[in-house]
């Protein structure tokens, strides 16, 4: 990128969110999420949650279950990836993995801003 | 006047092209004789339609030649079966002749064209005569008329390629052997029964009982007609004859010649011999059935390796004849329906495909698959016709090919012969390969450098697409063809005395 991102991007349509992809933005998002989670977990105790199975009666079951499974899936994928990932030219030339999308099918235009 | 014509329809069917043939030669100029021949075939077709309409309900028309009493004189006998075949033959002729003008002008020298059309009309005469007559010896006569005309037609391909002469010669020898066997067989039947009328023969064969003369006659007729209809391995004359004949002739022969022979086979097997004796069915099932199955595979595989499109289609025809014979050997109504409906279906499909080959020959000067690269872009309509025709050959649903295969598989399953059903399907896969080779060349391979190919003229495209249209129309709406075939089949079964018929 050339020039200062701030000045260059002011005129961009999505500039409201500018900075969200910086480390600071990420921290803010994470903290907001933590707050929301805490709020929802608390809200779960305000009324009785009807479930189909006993396990659902555990406090904030959906919360921690979701959290754990998500982390678990991520790690599982990481491990499986070691075995399944290959170079792009694995299936040789003439594979769509390797080739660029033909320009005739595209309408590539850069933003004016 | 109308009543006169109506009363003499069966005679007119044959006499019209017969009288027209010498007139055609006398006209003397290519264009004039072409126009005249066209006109004649249209009228002939109209006569066939009238006969078909008259017999559709089940009436049998019996016409006495020269007014002689029936077993003595020659009888022309039209029932549902041969009315259907007559329709195929005269219909193909009426479509091929309009197609023929441009391609014949390109392949035959101008001064020979009147004679070419004369031979063409004679060939039509012969084929119609074979189909319509109810007299065994008369069949032989018309067989010879059509064959001699065909030899001449095939040989006329020599203006393009000299090999047509050897092809015609081989065809002549084999055709003559076939006709001779046939007439020997007929002679043996005459020895036993003293009659030549087919209906009369059927009755008297039963009266006289089994004898070795009868068996001899049966085999000679089977092999003789087998030669004419290119039953594997008696097909050896066919590939070259089809490949080197003028394109219009190939299209016409592919649609009609073998079909008329198949009709004779059906007529003799069911009406005349009628399977009163076990040896008849046994022979059919032990000889013809395996040969038909081998034909389905061997000829298809050969087709896969062919480079000449016409030769490839010729081998495919041999495989298709395998299907027709297979249906016959089932000896059931469904099997016969499959055979008869495939007579029609294969006629329209193959005529269209050979016409496409003719268009390629006219525009590209070749029908060698390896030289047809990229032709799909230069001749889109012609190539599209090939694709649709090819799909029908494979037997894809919504095409006539599917209808035939459906009935055939159904017939095999009815008998519990599921291995045969599987083989029918497996051999269809082979058709995919040889059709695909052409499609691949036409659409996916680059055009040869510096070749200019124009789309075929409308006079050739329209008849081709009419055939294609028919193969789609009757693939979707098979009511007319399958009902007609079914009725013909039930009439045949009724006329036979199959031993185990309930």
């Amino acid at each position: 990128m050339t020039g200062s991102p701030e000045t260059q991007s002011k005129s961009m349509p999505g500039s409201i969110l500018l900075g969200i992809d910086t480390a600071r933005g990420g921290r803010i998002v994470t903290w907001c999420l933590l707050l929301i989670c805490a709020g929802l977990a608390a809200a779960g105790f305000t009324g009785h949650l009807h479930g189909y199975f006993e396990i659902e009666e555990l406090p904030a079951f959906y919360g921690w279950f979701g959290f754990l499974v998500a982390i678990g899936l991520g790690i599982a994928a990481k491990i499986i990836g070691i075995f399944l990932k290959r170079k792009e030219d694995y299936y040789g030339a003439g594979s769509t993995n390797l080739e660029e999308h033909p320009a005739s099918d595209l309408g590539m235009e850069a933003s004016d801003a | 006047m109308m009543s006169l014509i109506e009363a003499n329809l069966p005679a007119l069917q044959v006499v019209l092209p017969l009288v027209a043939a010498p007139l055609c030669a006398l006209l003397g100029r290519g264009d004039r004789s072409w126009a005249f021949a066209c006109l004649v075939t249209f009228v002939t077709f109209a006569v066939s339609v009238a006969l078909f309409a008259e017999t559709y309900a089940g009436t049998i028309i019996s016409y006495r030649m020269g007014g002689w009493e029936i077993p003595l004189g020659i009888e022309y006998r039209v029932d549902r079966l041969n009315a259907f075949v007559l329709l195929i033959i005269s219909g193909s002729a009426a479509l091929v002749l309009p197609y023929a003008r441009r391609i014949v002008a390109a392949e035959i020298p101008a001064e020979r064209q009147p004679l070419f059309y004369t031979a063409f009309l004679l060939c039509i005469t012969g084929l119609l005569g074979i189909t319509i007559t109810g007299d065994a010896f008369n069949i032989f006569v018309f067989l010879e008329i059509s064959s001699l005309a065909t030899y001449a037609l095939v040989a006329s391909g020599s203006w393009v390629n000299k090999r047509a002469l050897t092809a015609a010669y081989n065809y002549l020898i084999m055709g003559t052997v076939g006709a001779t066997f046939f007439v020997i067989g007929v002679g043996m039947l005459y020895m036993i029964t003293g009659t030549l009328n087919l209906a009369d023969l059927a009755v008297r064969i039963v009266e006289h009982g089994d004898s070795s003369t009868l068996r001899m006659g049966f085999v000679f007729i089977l092999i003789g007609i087998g030669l004419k209809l290119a039953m594997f391995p008696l097909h050896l004359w066919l590939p070259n004859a089809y490949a080197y004949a003028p394109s219009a002739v190939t299209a016409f022969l592919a649609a009609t010649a073998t079909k008329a022979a198949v009709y004779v086979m059906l007529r003799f097997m069911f009406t005349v011999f009628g399977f009163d004796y076990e040896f008849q069915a046994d022979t059919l099932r032990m000889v013809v059935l395996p040969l038909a199955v081998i034909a389905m595979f061997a000829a298809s595989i050969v087709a896969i390796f062919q480079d000449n499109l016409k030769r490839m289609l010729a081998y495919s025809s041999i495989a298709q004849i395998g299907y027709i014979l297979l249906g016959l050997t089932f000896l059931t109504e469904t099997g016969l329906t499959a055979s008869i409906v495939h007579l029609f279906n294969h006629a329209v499909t193959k005529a269209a495909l050979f016409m496409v080959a003719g268009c390629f020959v006219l525009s590209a000067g070749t029908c060698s698959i390896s030289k047809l690269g990229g032709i799909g872009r230069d001749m889109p309509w012609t190539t599209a016709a090939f694709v649709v025709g090819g799909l029908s050959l494979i037997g894809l649903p919504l095409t006539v090919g599917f209808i035939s295969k459906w009935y055939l598989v159904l017939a095999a399953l009815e008998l519990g012969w599921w291995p045969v059903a599987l083989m029918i399907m497996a051999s269809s896969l082979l058709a995919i390969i040889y059709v695909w080779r052409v499609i691949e060349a036409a659409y996916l391979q680059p055009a040869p450098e510096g070749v200019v190919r124009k789309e075929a003229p409308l006079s050739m495209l329209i008849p081709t697409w009419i055939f294609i249209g028919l193969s789609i129309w009757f693939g979707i709406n098979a009511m007319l063809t399958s009902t007609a075939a079914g009725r013909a089949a039930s009439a045949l079964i009724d006329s036979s005395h199959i031993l185990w018929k309930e």
Partner: protein
Amino acid sequence: MPEYLTPALAYVAAALLVPFVPKGALRGLYLAIVPLAGILIFWGLTPGTYNAFNVMGMQIGLMRVDALSQLFGLAFSVAAILAALYAWHLRDTIQQIATLLYAGSAMGAVFAADLITLFVFWEGTAIASVFLIWARRTEGSFAAGMRYLIVQIGSGVILIAGIVLLYRETGSIAFTAMELGSPATWTILAAIGIKCAFPFLHNWMHDAYPSATVTGTVVLSIFTTKLAIYALLRGFPGTELLIYIGIAMALFPIVFALLENDLRRVLTYSLNSQLGFMVVGAGIGTPLAINGAAAHAVASIFYQGLLFMSVGAILFRTGTARATALGGLYRTMPLTMIFCLVGAASISALPLTSGFVSKSMILSAGGYEKMFPVWIALLAASIGAILHTGLRLPYLAFFGSDGGLRPKEAPGGMLAAMGLTAALCIAIGVMPAAFYALLPNDVPYEPYTFSHTIVQLQLVAFVALAFALAVKRGLLPKAERGIVLDTDWIYRRLLSAILGSIGRLIAGLWKGAGRMIASSLNWGAGIVYHLHGPRGPFARTWPTGAMVMVVAFLLGMTLVVTYI
């Protein structure tokens, strides 16, 4: 309504006329109106079978109208309109015709009352849709299209084999619920399973869809698989086996979706996983489960379509859908981002979106039947969906590390299509009652209970938290250029390796006569070529004498047979 008029025929007729409509706005309008006309044909008909006639002794019915077929017909039609809007910029007649034929075939299959009609349109969808892949016009897309076509046609062939067997067995070709047990029904299930992307039969989808054109992928994602779901709901409701298949189907693609770099591939895996939910629904088979599966199919047509549209828009503007090249697009494509987020919210089943009101029905159906393993597995699959498509996909495309691309916002047609689709996703989520009224079974269901809403919010929020942490700590697979092996390895590598070695073997044999390693295959192929090749005895031009000898031999043999 005139006889013989079915939506399918309307589409086909319209497709034939496409070349005669001038390109541009007029054609765009034409393509969008055709599905509308299609709706008019079937909407408002009283349930029953129309256009029935007898062919070769079999009862053919072109139009079976009931709640299920109307629901799918409507969803397909609306999706087709949206796809036409999305492709407004397109000037490729082949794709436009293919789209109409494809949509028409799918409509035809949905309204088919008998298996033969189903089969015809089944093959129709295969043949029409492959042109959307080939329209990319590259070597790779041609090969991928070929593989796709082989699988799809194969599915059709298996289907017709099953139909023939069924006809032999029962004498009927009506398309109604079947019981697994006979070879016929197993075969038919296998055919549907291919189209439905059952595990191990799934790979055609991940191979072919991302190889299509920008608009082609969107169109492809709508019809084929949903048609298969429809066929399952119609043909095999309550088949227990489907539950297990569905669970496997919902779970295994999660890993692939997390690993893939190509965002269109991520979406095909996520689609595959969503299909798993519907298969489970069909397998449970209670009225609620059937409703849920149907509802989820319809909802997924739209939210999955929306996601495909947004990724397509990115591809259209940037020329790539690889996560490694993207990132930070929120700056210049904010509308696309918003629409993508609506889709992501829907697939995450966030309340007020369509995913919430449809997915929860399937989970509830499992819950009511006290199928704990089913329920917990689907819950895990939901978490996976939130993770890979709800969060990872928009993150990689629009946020994440800035790829430096500053493309223009998507063109108007795409934005309109995405906007309408997004609105539809939200409308279904906000007004579930109107949506439920369209479902086949009349089962009361209330998605917006306090507990449902709160637990779903909890789920999404905590997974989002987990995602944020995982991104920070590197607990997720890194997006990197490359591919992920799937079962296509079997035919793209293993099989071609085997064939290749056989080929080498044959070549070796051909050359070195001394090498005596003869594989039977080579032997067979050699014999066949030897016999049937252009110089083989079957194809050679024989001398006349030899021909006559053959005749004489056959005559002799036949005589012998006759006298035995």
